[in-house]
């Protein structure tokens, strides 16, 4: 009798501990493999998960001396300040507007270039084009920023020299914010079209050859083949690339934009994006102490909307072609 009871009890403790024992067993059994994942997972934890609790700063009147947990709460005061300021509309609009133009014109240009590239002849010439058009992708943002200066610098830039030679009125580019969305989008196109082209050229070469041959036999001309075969076959790639870009539309290309416009306060009205705004408020380049609570609120605003957009776009991708969904 006693023995049975004891056995029962053992059984009960065993049942409670079962999940842990199993986890432990699994970890022990494959200890080497799990150890292999440790460096990356640890670094991922340190740089991505450890900052997450810091989000509470967005709801605090953050004071460095008091630390994250010691500072006093101030509810949604930080958000209110941000949403009521003119900065909110400016950085939100600029981020989305610049990205929107990048996506739209970037896709159009890459697809048109890829199709034209496919239609012209001369294998060697094409290889040379591709090599050269891919070059800007390798330049750092800072170097590209210097190239923009070569063109637009007020006293020494090429464009003002040309304007001057034609007898026109030179423009103070770096004090004229109205031109800069176009300049930034143009720079982005120039830098990335070579990269994006490769993706579409790869998609074109994946098209079934028999389809093309069948069209030939049916007497289709070049234009008809492009319109009825090439383009429809590119649509899936276009849609997926665009959806993924839309998922990232709330994150500006800080690296490039700041390298080009960082030092120019007068361009802020059209080129200030969420990232550069946060950078300035943390580094307090306008003087005064950095306002961590406020800038965390701006970050959280960005992360939250960004999160919703990624989920949304991924849902659409999944509906369209589950193979390409992120999750």
């Amino acid at each position, binding site marked *: 009798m006693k023995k049975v009871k004891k056995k029962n009890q053992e059984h009960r403790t065993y049942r409670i501990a079962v999940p842990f024992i199993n986890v432990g067993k699994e970890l022990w059994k494959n200890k080497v493999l799990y150890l292999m994942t440790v460096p990356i997972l640890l670094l991922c934890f340190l740089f991505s998960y450890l900052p997450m609790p810091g989000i509470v700063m967005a709801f605090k009147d953050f004071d460095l001396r008091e630390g994250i947990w010691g500072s006093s709460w101030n509810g949604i005061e930080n958000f209110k300040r941000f949403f009521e300021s003119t900065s909110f509309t400016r950085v939100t609009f600029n981020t989305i507007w610049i990205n929107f133009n990048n996506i739209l014109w970037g896709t159009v240009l890459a697809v048109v270039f890829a199709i*034209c590239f496919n239609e012209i002849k001369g294998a060697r010439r094409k290889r040379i084009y591709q090599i050269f058009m891919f070059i800007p992708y390798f330049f750092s943002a800072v170097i590209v920023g210097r190239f923009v200066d070569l063109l637009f610098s007020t006293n020494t830039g090429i464009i003002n020299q040309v304007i001057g030679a034609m007898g026109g009125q030179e423009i103070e580019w770096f004090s004229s914010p109205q031109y800069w969305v176009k300049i930034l989008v143009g720079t982005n196109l*120039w830098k990335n079209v070579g990269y994006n082209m490769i993706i579409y050229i790869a998609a074109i070469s994946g098209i079934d050859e028999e389809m093309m041959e069948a069209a030939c036999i049916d007497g289709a001309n070049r234009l008809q083949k492009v319109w009825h075969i090439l383009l429809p076959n590119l649509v899936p790639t276009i849609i997926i690339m665009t959806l993924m870009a839309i998922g990232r539309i709330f994150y500006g290309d800080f690296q490039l934009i700041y390298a080009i416009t960082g030092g120019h306060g007068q361009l802020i009205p059209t080129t200030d994006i969420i990232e550069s705004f*946060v950078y300035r408020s943390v580094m307090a380049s306008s003087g005064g102490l950095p306002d961590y609570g406020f800038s965390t609120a701006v970050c959280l605003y960005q992360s939250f909307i960004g999160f919703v957009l990624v989920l949304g776009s991924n849902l659409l991708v999944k509906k369209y072609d589950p193979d390409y969904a992120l999750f």
Partner: protein
Amino acid sequence: MKHAARKINASKNNKIKESASYHVFSGVTNLVFLLFSISTVLPMILTIIVSFTDERAIMRNGYSFFPEKWSTMAYQLVMDQDWVFRAYGVTIFVTVAGTFLCVVFSSLCAYAIAQPTLKYRNVLALFLFIPVVFNAGVVPWYLIVTRTLHLKNTIFALIFPIIVQPFWVFLLRNYFKTIPPALTEAAEIDGAGKVYTFFKIVLPISKPIVATVALFAALMYWNDYVTALWLVDKQELWPLQYMLYKINSLITFLTKGGAASLGGINTVVPNESFIMVVFVVAMGPIVLVYPFVQKYFVKGIVVGAVKG
């Protein structure tokens, strides 16, 4: 290659004469590609020419492909600046160490989570993936890195904060999944450990994908200036790109009315040409290496296509 072969085939099949409109199309397209190709090289050439231009000529005529007066003074000046070489050294160290660690750590993790026998592989993948979708934002990150990890103004700040690139891990994992298990099992039966198998068997046969990731990592480290923008003030630790960024903003400051404060023409400091020299020196390695690595990048993009 296959693509090119098909093109040739197709044009053989179409022995029909090309229409006049095709010739127009072909001409225009070639012209556009040609101009675009030139536009990618011209800025480099202009930078080199300006670096050899006499400072006064720049002040008078602006940047020009045909300078009034040549000069190598800026080059002599750069040679005397230790900090240029120092920044170079920092970037080379960060690129080599960062790329090496990134590739080793990423492929180790990728290999482990590619094993179907690993029960929690999907949990680990999810752990890596969540930050892609949601992150705390740069301010909490900045405070943790500077105040908790104390990485500000250390060389590690330039390496570790950007070392985890989940998509590269997944790219590697997808490749490792295609390795036939028979290969590694045979080694393990012979008594080789997992780590040994990984380094001696798996890595060598995965050269193409590992090389691709290494190249992308190297490019990322070489071109990165934003990490330094946040985490490095000390000049000894400025990487090359950040130094370029700094002197670029300096020249902006000088040309925006600062030129007057430099004094008369007699005290000309070769600042424009000087900066151009530094940029030439910085572009050098990329331009030299580019022709040799270009095709691997193309392959990498095609493999990683959408998800990369």
